[in-house]
């Protein structure tokens, strides 16, 4: 069974006043298997972020369904959806992933803390996650004291810390230079190969997309192409 599946997913932003409604996503069917590394590409405004937000339960679709591990997200109330986000999904945004008031370690531990995990255990898990992204030495620093690449690696660590079913990353490298970008991508790749972590990554960058075994191309809210290169495919 697919870890994540969408059926005829649609999202229309109703325009306010004179503005016309925007159909950001129009009928997307997508199935993602466990351990897959999927890159979603497409031109700006093609609906990538909107799709990802629906996959992660950040926004609800106008029509269609999202099934995560067989569960229809539309059936869940807000609190249950929050619990799914907390335990089963890891998010990485383009920027401002971390709360500026908290240290890196605290930021990474946050999902566990939210889940009521004790101090000692959440800290240990956060440290482990930071080690996995090679950021353990900066655990006590605040986000402002870290470079953009370091912040993004921290965000990946936070996404991983609960052992989620799937990691959703929206242009995690969009604000980074090529070296840092490569490091983050390499990190995600390693997660897929070493831990069989499922990752969906939205990106503009063909170099980044190339790292993924499967590339989904979007255009005007629809899937234009879906190709598997086989390199890391099962």
């Amino acid at each position, binding site marked *: 069974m697919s870890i994540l599946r969408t059926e005829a997913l649609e999202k229309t932003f109703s325009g306010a006043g004179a503005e016309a409604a925007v159909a950001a996503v129009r009928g997307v069917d997508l199935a993602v298997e466990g351990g897959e590394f999927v890159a979603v590409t497409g031109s700006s405004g093609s609906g990538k972020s909107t799709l990802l*937000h629906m996959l*992660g339960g*950040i*926004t609800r679709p106008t029509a269609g369904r999202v099934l995560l591990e067989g569960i229809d997200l539309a059936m869940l109330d*807000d*609190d249950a959806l*929050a*619990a*799914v*986000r*907390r*335990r089963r*999904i890891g*998010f990485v*945004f383009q920027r*401002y*992933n971390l*709360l*500026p*008031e*908290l240290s890196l370690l*605290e930021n990474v531990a*946050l*999902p566990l*803390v*939210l*889940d*009521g995990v004790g101090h000692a255990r959440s800290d240990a898990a956060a440290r482990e996650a930071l080690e996995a992204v090679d950021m353990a030495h900066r655990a006590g620093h*605040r*986000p*402002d004291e870290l470079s953009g690449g370091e912040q993004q690696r921290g965000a990946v660590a*936070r996404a991983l810390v609960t052992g989620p079913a799937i990691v959703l990353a929206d242009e995690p490298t969009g604000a980074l230079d090529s070296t840092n970008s490569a490091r983050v991508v390499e990190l995600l790749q390693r997660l897929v190969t070493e831990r069989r972590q499922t990752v969906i990554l939205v990106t503009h960058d063909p170099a980044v997309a190339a790292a993924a075994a499967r590339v989904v191309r979007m255009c005007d809210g629809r899937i234009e192409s879906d190709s598997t290169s086989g390199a890391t495919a099962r």
Partner: protein
Amino acid sequence: MRLRTLLVRQWRNRPGRALAAAASVAVAVGAVVATWAAADASRAGYRRLTETIAGVPSLDITARDGGRFDAMLVPRVVDVPGVRAVVPLFYRPTLLRIGDNRLREMAVGVDAAALAAAGLLALEAGEPCREDDEVVLDATLAKGLGVGVGDEVLFFARRRIARMRITGLATGDSLRWFAEGATVVVDIQALEAMSLSTAQVDRIRIALAGDADRSQVMAAVAGRLPPRLVADVPVGRASMADDVLHSANLGLDFVTALTLAMAWFIVGNAMLMNVAERRRGLSLVRLLGATGRQVRRFVTLEAALLGGVGATVGAVVGLAAAGPISAGISRALQTPATGVAVHPLLVPMAIVMGVGLAVAAAWWPAWEATSLDLLEGLASAPPAAPPATTRKLLVAGGLLTLVAAISEALMYVEVWPPRASVVSGIALLLAFVTVTPFLIVPLVRFLGRFIPDRWRVEGRLAIDQIVRQPIRTALTAGVLVVAVSNGIGLGHAIRDSVEDVLAWYGRMLKADWVLTQAGALSVSREERSADSRRLETLVRGLDGVADVEGIGVATGRVAGTVCVVIARDMPDDRPLPLEPVGMSPDEVRAALARGEAVAGTVLAQRAGVKAGDEVTVEVFGRATPVKIAALVVDYTSGGASLQLRRDAARRIFGMEAADVLLVTAQPGRAAGLREPLEANAREYSMLLRSFSELRRGIDVIVNGVVSSLWSILGLGFVVGSLGVANTVTMSVLEKKRSLGLLRAIGMRRGQVVRMVVLESIMLGIASGIIGLVAGLTTALFIQLASQPLLGHPLKFHVRLDIIAVNLLAAVVVTALAAWLPARRAVRLDLLESISAE
């Protein structure tokens, strides 16, 4: 793009933030206007209250050895600051025939026309008497006799029988002020002529302006008098009302000052947040080439605009609120509401102040934001407070404490007036606020332990938020500390002084009926003594009387200081009506029996007398050494009293007459005594009042004053609450994105709300605790301040109800203020909140 465009854009983009900043100024200015108007209404109410209860505040000039004196002896005193009018009084018991009734009444000779013109003689009908054959009667007496203006009265004077015409009827209240017991008003020269005593007066009553300090005027007047004459508070008049009102006025000053302090905090806080929140945006503008000065000017301009709008709205709201508040206070004081008389400069001044405050408050964070390293400014987290700030705060706290201590000490040794306690109280409070940043974090951490396990997560995050935002936390806490300490401090002070006065009153007057000497002291001492003895015997012999205690009152001097000498029976079988300081009642009783005296604490302080001293006491021109056995708490004549047993006073000074008779009835027979006592009182020119009548008068004052103070205090609390609500709301709005991020990674809506509310409540409780300590300290300060005012320290009680109400209110206000915006923040679409900047 010009900076002004950016300003407008920013407002449009974040209307909540600009609105909250303007609202803070509105709250502050509204508070100042409303509090000011309410304090004014209270002061006016107190003044009218004193006038109705105890008459116009006044002083008497009398002969040192009693009896009449030549009015020519009195120098000019009208020009002494605080003197409203000078009223020579001449009393004469007379026989009248009105219609078919023959009455013995007390006539008083005054310059009636002048009195009426000064507003001191109020007529129900007719006009004041001017000619020799004109008379004004007490309205109640006239009604009882069925006569009115134009009717005739036969006046049996010493020399002749005069036929006089009633020209006016005076209200009892206005007569009572200058002529207690007198019912007939005649022109002073006419009465003197009829009594063959030209230019002689019994006393000269000096009416004081409402805002005059009685003791200052008394000193100034006394300084001009020849040795034969003395100036004093009218004998027998409860100057207690005066003392209560004095403390109440002090309380008013205090509340007004505190509200100003609070307003300053609220504005400072809002402006700081308004600018600090946009630090990144401002840095970006600088990055694009704006100079620091341009940015500061931009921020200052914004503050002035927001301040101007807010101040105008606040002034309007404050004025609108002032009406009902003043009316409520007048009602509480049972004085006629005269409407709000707002000083014409108050509103413009409040607006200028609001704008000035806003600009000043915005300038500092603007300066900080522009002096910040650009990179640091662009960072997303606010910088931690630099250690220099910490040191500065500690130094400021130390200095403020020093100022408070010094001014309190100067006041305690009476170099400074009691009003200085306002200075020390405010300085102390600010000192507490400056140390708040250091106390708040450990306190919050401590409180965190009591968060139930279920909410551990939210609690931990909430504590993090508090700890990581020291400046904001400190400012919010500052508003709360001021509000809570205001409530607790003044609440304690009000209750303590009221209880003190009531306890004294209960000790002093334990009787069912009280007979007091009416105004006349003119008859010779021997005559009065004889009269008094007769009356006492008569009253004692009445059926149903259990006990009669006589109190004699005279003006005297102790070691040169003017005082009231009180001679009182103090029978052994009744509780001692005194509260000695540092000596047991039994010891005092024994000392009094030996012929020693006790001095009121204020007198002791003024005359430099200690317990155990032997001092020269002058009464009726006779100087005698008397030993002071102890000091006692007393409000008679503001505590400047010397008390001794009546038998001793008779022996030492020849004080025989009782000016006051306290009559205790046998159980269940009090009511039946009214008639016989009334008959005797009339015969001997005494006033009869039941204890409950007296008590009612006191209660009107005390309750009125207390409720007026509470209402102003309540106003302060509303202001504090609005300020706190504003601050918390701004702080929640500002965290929109963080809250969205927390939800994105799986925090439930309920958890988010709980976290925000917990943060706020913890801040509320922690500030409440600091405010509690500050409030109790303030209360102690106020009490110390009352030492020179009252002559004795007030007993300090910790009042759990006041504390509980204040802390509870702090928690409820902070919880509500956080809950409402937090609910709104989590109702937002998640997508919208994470894309918020």
